[in-house]
């Protein structure tokens, strides 16, 4: 990346999921040589984000990483724009759902777990379901997760050979078992969390464009982000 980012600031919602995502990504940031300039944890009920935003502005990080659910960070992004925060990239782990309807999302990068343009197992089924339900994947954060859960249950029942609660549970708990989902295969961790591949996207002219990995990219990443100058 040119120019190369050197620093990162974490803004994290006080929630088990978002904290776990933050902790995982700290390791990647360290490997990439990014220096952490600060971490601000906020409660889900926060509406006035001026305190954390002023801290971010003072730290002047190259990357701002927001690990939060979509709805609670609508005012965060709005206030970041109003207070003219500058960075090479603002990354939001759930840059869709409630945020998808916000103009403030323009130029923000995020993560999607599948995209209509991607292939993979059950992709055709996923497209059919989305079309039949008249659902725009990007507007509904949990659509893909729920579809994944349904597909995993089908596979578990097929492998168990019966609709038997104990046998299906045993299949799901098998260490090292690999499961198929649109976008690729995945395994469950020891604690039962799914470890699925995500695709980085960037909002460009109101539309999500998959920018990484290169083999699945549907467009080029704008770096540094033109909307956070």
């Amino acid at each position, binding site marked *: 990346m040119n120019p190369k980012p050197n620093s990162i600031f974490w803004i994290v919602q006080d929630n088990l999921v978002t904290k776990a995502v933050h902790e995982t990504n700290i390791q990647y940031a360290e490997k990439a040589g990014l220096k952490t300039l600060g971490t*601000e944890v906020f409660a889900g009920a926060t509406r006035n984000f001026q*305190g954390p935003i002023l801290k971010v502005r003072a730290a002047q990080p190259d990357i701002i990483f927001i690990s939060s659910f979509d709805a609670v960070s609508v005012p965060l992004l709005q206030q970041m724009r109003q207070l003219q925060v500058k960075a090479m990239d603002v990354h939001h782990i759930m840059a869709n759902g409630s945020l998808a309807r916000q103009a403030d999302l323009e130029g923000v990068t995020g993560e999607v777990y599948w995209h209509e343009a991607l292939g993979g197992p059950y992709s055709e089924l996923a497209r059919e379901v989305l079309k039949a339900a008249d659902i725009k994947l990007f507007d509904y954060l949990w659509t893909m997760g729920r579809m994944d859960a349904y597909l995993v249950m089908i596979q578990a029942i097929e492998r168990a050979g019966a609709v038997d609660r104990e046998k299906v549970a045993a299949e799901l708990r098998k260490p090292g078992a690999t499961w198929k989902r649109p976008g690729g295969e995945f395994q469950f961790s020891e604690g039962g969390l799914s470890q699925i591949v995500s695709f980085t996207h960037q909002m460009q002219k109101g539309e999500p464009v998959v920018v990484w990995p290169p083999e699945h990219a549907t467009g080029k990443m704008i770096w540094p982000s033109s909307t956070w100058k």
Partner: protein
Amino acid sequence: MTTILIQLLIGGILLGGLYALIAFGLSLIYGVARVLNFAHGTLLAIAGIAASLMFAAWGLNPILIAALLFPIFFGFGWLMYVYLLDPLKKRNSMQATVGTVLVTVGLLLIISDLAAQIAGPTSVNIRLPVDVFILQGIIVSTTDLYILLGIAALTLALHLILTRTWFGLAVRSVTQDSTGARICGVRAGAIHAATVAFGSAIVAIAGVLYVLNYPVNPYEGFGLTVKAFTIIILGGIGNLPGALLAGIFLGVAEALTGFFWSSDWAPGLSIILLLVILIVFPQGFLSRRAT
């Protein structure tokens, strides 16, 4: 540091002013009709959702949206009092108090679920085109200015209504001495209904102002009601100037907590304050009965 402090004060006053608007209605309703309306914050959330839907569908000016919602919520408040709350007054004091809590909490649950069914459970807001003014590093957006103007105008209008109109006089007389007011020809029952209706209509305008800066979902109302309770206890029940000061105090305290301590603690501050005030200052800091 001065710039940061002023910036934090602006944000705190903005949010605190909105908290105060929520508390005005609740304070008025409790001060006059003695109704603890647990659904009050939910009415704000519903008004905010309705406003954002109207803005998205028809692109209406928020002032016009507020003007449309005011009579609707006034009517809803009136019906709520006449059909749900007034019948409870025929019961004994204990039953009436418990009944009021049950009815308003039940109403909160029903209207939250209805709104989620109709409009969806996700948060919505109104995003106006924004310009910013920068003075010595302090940034104020046009949306912030609209909200501040709205808070000031509504506070002034409410003050004038309560001090310069027959309705305000009647409200104050019923609050001070219900029997005396009746002897003088004031229909206390109608004043109670009108106050609940008026309080509900005020929160509708507060809802429109709120969604200009902050998103709401149908289930968010109860948290706002708790903040409003904190404010009226801090400012003194029935004391509107006290509620305004208390709202701003809470908003600024949350903003300063978010910067100097941790954002994680800021939303919980109202609960901590509520407990401290109830123990140390049970009459509130400003316990004058203004209404």
